[in-house]
């Protein structure tokens, strides 16, 4: 696997640590941000193959972040996954409408986390 870059955005430090571990072990290059505004700094021209973002975050939430990315010409069509705890909800539809590719349901384990990522990048 080539070193694909994944940006992971979550306001929970422990989740960030956990996800960084899982992704690095799987061979990905990992970037980390703690909210939407922080995440946007990363979209400065470098290659980002996948964005995974939580939805509930202070400052800029996940939905706003997704909408912002879909407006950037270079990143317009990158896959975006969001983290959700609900199996069905308005939040999910809102995120899809904003342009998200799919979602990862919390709680997740290493196996299904990687499996979901494989749906959108390989």
């Amino acid at each position: 696997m080539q070193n694909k870059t994944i940006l992971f955005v979550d306001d929970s430090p422990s989740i960030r640590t956990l996800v960084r571990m899982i992704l690095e072990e799987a061979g990905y290059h990992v970037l980390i941000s703690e909210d939407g505004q922080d995440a946007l700094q990363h979209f400065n021209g470098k290659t980002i193959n996948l964005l995974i973002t939580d939805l509930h975050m202070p400052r800029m939430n996940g939905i706003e972040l997704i909408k912002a990315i879909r407006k950037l010409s270079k990143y317009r069509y990158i896959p975006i996954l969001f983290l959700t705890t609900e199996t069905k909800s308005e939040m999910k539809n809102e995120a899809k409408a904003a342009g998200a590719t799919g979602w990862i349901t919390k709680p997740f384990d290493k196996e299904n986390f990687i499996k979901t990522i494989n749906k959108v990048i390989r």
Partner: protein
Amino acid sequence: MDDLSASFVNEANELLESLEEALLKLENHPDDQEEINTAFRVMHSLKGTGAMFGFEELSSFTHEMESLYDLVRTGKQKADKNLIDFTFKSIDLIRRLLDNPKDEETQTMEKELLNEIKTKFSAGETREKPEPLPVHKTKEKKKGNQVTWYIRFEPHRDILKNGTRPLYLLDELADAGGIKTFLHTDNIPDFKHLNVENTYVYWDILLSSDKDENFLRDVFIFVEDESRIEIEKISEHNLLSHPEFEKQITSLGLHENITPEKLQQLTAVLSFPEKTEVEEPEEEITGEQPEPPKEVKQDQEEVPDKEDVQKRILHETVRVPSAKLDELLDIISEVVTTQARLGHYSRHHEDPELQDITEDYEKLSRQLRENALGMRLIPIYTILIRFKRLVHDLSREMNKEIRLKTTGTETELDKSMIEKLYDPLMHILRNSIDHGIEPPEERKKAGKPVQGLIHIGTSYQGAFVQIKISDDGRGMDEKELKKVAMEKGFIQPGMEISSKELLQLIFRPGFSTSKKVSKISGRGVGMDVVKKNIEDLRGSIELETEKGKGTTVKILLPLTLSIIDGLLIHVGNNRYILPMNNVKQVFPVTRKELKKSFNNVISKDNHQIPFVNLIKEFEEKDTSQKELYLIVVDYGKKEMGFVINSVEGKYQAVIKPLSRLAQKQEIFSGASVLGDGEVALVIDTNKMIDKFINT
């Protein structure tokens, strides 16, 4: 995970601190939306993260709290003193749950608080609560049987725009087992209407896997709302592993489209031994021997496969009167002619939609044609078995010992051709039995086995079927042939004649070498009629003989009779059709090259090709100064080039026979009505080659 759990506990404590801060602010400003949101988010984070790190009780409790704060957020519950007091109590509980969730006191406290939520706060509320989170556990999947699924995946047009890569989903399916995908491109619009950011393709998929339907649905989970997804189990077996799978896919035409009927046929044809007893197919339909009595049936379960499969195939057949097949072909001829008219019309009208429809219609009419022609194919053994008896009876009568050997009997030909082959083949056989094979004593003297052999070998030769009838008899004597030819006035004394030309004389009317009229091969109304019969089928016939060794008759027949794929070409002001199957290559050629060529041989691609300039040959006016084309056609091992003005394109030609007056000529096999109503002659490339190369 221990370090990680510790880090979660730290994080949770920080979150609780920020929650306490928010609650204190809320006491003074109960409507402060920002603080309410903070409280909600803390509960939400604790719920999600807690579940991630295995804090099950904490997660389920904060789930209730999250729901409660959702009510506050949406104005259905006031952030009053009651709520704030209760939340402080909850914070204490959460700290205990972080510390030791199994503690008894903690558990009673949790129960009390949960009860309080129910009675005090959410009474009468019908808010749809999200499900509490399961704490993740790796699911044990039991290995099931490999079954076969049919999946139709029609992605939404905009699917690429939200970052979905449909091919990854197919990859994911492929990881689940054996996969066969069929890509459909017929929704792609013409260039003007094409938006490169849209998706127009869709897939049919056959998948063999031990996974269940939920697993397969899960693959499409991100796209299921917008896309059309059909998943259906079509077999309890792994069809893809069946050795006949690819073959049946092709023969059922699954590449063209997939219908429920075709899938049914596929599963029926690719059968696997069943555990339960299958009812025997009716004898009438299979035309097989009556089944042995019941006791024997039990063995059948152990040795089912091949015969069983064949029986099922037969079971699927339907008898149709052959007149109906002829009628079908007539109608299809009309369809093809109409399609040509439509094609002509749409080429002269700049209408993309019309062109689109025309293309589809052309594709369909071609499929229809191939399908109908395919239905008419019958293996040649249907007539060859009749000959076995004939050879047996005749050789008895002649006191000769003859064995008939047949090979390639599964070779298929159009049924009308098979019917018309019976007479000529019988004639050739009679000749071999009567004149070819020697009586036993003579064979013994010549050192040959007493039993004579006649071999009928059938094989595909490109777009043709070759039937070779050879005997190991006495062959023909050139001197004898010459003598007869002279006696009958076919040649004059002293005339030079090659052995090939001499053999061609046999096919002339009135030529027979039989010393006396024999009961079996008649009175010399023989080979000329045979030749005529074969040529009526657009075939050709050739004879080889060697004295003392035997005679071989070779018949070459086209696969189809009435509708062919042709190449429409321009020669002068007229258009002609060349059978596509014979066309090998097309080269542009300059007038200069033609002038430089010597003895009508031109060099292309490093090899020498004899050619005929059809413009001259057909006495057409060559007025244009444009580049010319050389079309290379082949026939057996020979090849030849035709110089023409231009190529118009591929054309499905319904071949109509020429009138009697035109039948004398040798190089056109028929005519076809073009889309604009004009007529194009169909060039018989084989005859053409014969005419120009052999003489």
